[in-house]
């Protein structure tokens, strides 16, 4: 049941390998994971770098609320969310979401819910650097 904001680069595969879901392992039938990376192209423009700002305190609170909603709604065994903040470069992992449950539908649906809701409810803001100018990202790209 971990929610973490990371100011440093993280390796989502290593995080998953090192994470032990709570509860009885023999009751887990499914794990669904989503990993989001930084692209070097957004709205047709080359993006050189990105700064991810957040609202410390509220971000954790919003993510924990989302996680609790997902765990309750889909009867998850466990859920994990890790999200980067700070200076990012193309190919850097931005977010890791994972959901564990008895059956695949719950894990897959909860994983989708967590990443989609996070995009509209957790207070993060992206600022892109394009060559010699900067711009705030104003809306999310459709899934």
């Amino acid at each position, binding site marked *: 049941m971990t929610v973490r904001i990371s100011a440093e680069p993280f390796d989502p595969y290593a995080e998953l390998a090192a994470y032990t879901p709570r509860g009885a392992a023999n009751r887990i039938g499914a794990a669904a994971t989503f990993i989001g990376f930084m692209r070097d192209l957004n709205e047709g423009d080359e993006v050189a770098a990105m700064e991810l700002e957040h*609202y410390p305190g509220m971000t954790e609170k919003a993510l924990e609320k989302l996680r609790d909603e997902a765990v309750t709604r889909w009867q998850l065994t466990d859920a994990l969310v890790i999200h980067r903040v700070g200076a990012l470069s193309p190919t850097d992992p*931005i*977010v890791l979401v994972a959901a564990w449950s008895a059956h695949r539908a719950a894990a897959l649906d909860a994983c989708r819910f967590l990443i989609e809701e996070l*995009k509209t409810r957790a207070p*993060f*803001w992206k600022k892109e650097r394009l060559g010699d100018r900067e711009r*705030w990202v104003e809306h999310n790209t459709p899934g």
Partner: protein
Amino acid sequence: MSIQVKIFASLRERLGSDGMELPVDGIRTVADVWARVAPEQPLGGQVLMAVNMDYAQADQPVSDGDEVAFFPPVTGGAG
């Protein structure tokens, strides 16, 4: 007797401030806080609000010791 105000991202840049401490006198709602922060600007749909780190509406009451935040629509996640 004060309200702590925080401002984030593009809104912080536009207003030229990341926040302030306001005396609570005369402040009853989030909208009243905004009127002190940006008297010239309407509190439109492109400004999100939070009280004590929970999303709020403009008419939500605020009181001494509250933290009130204003920020643009959020853009986290990836993919």
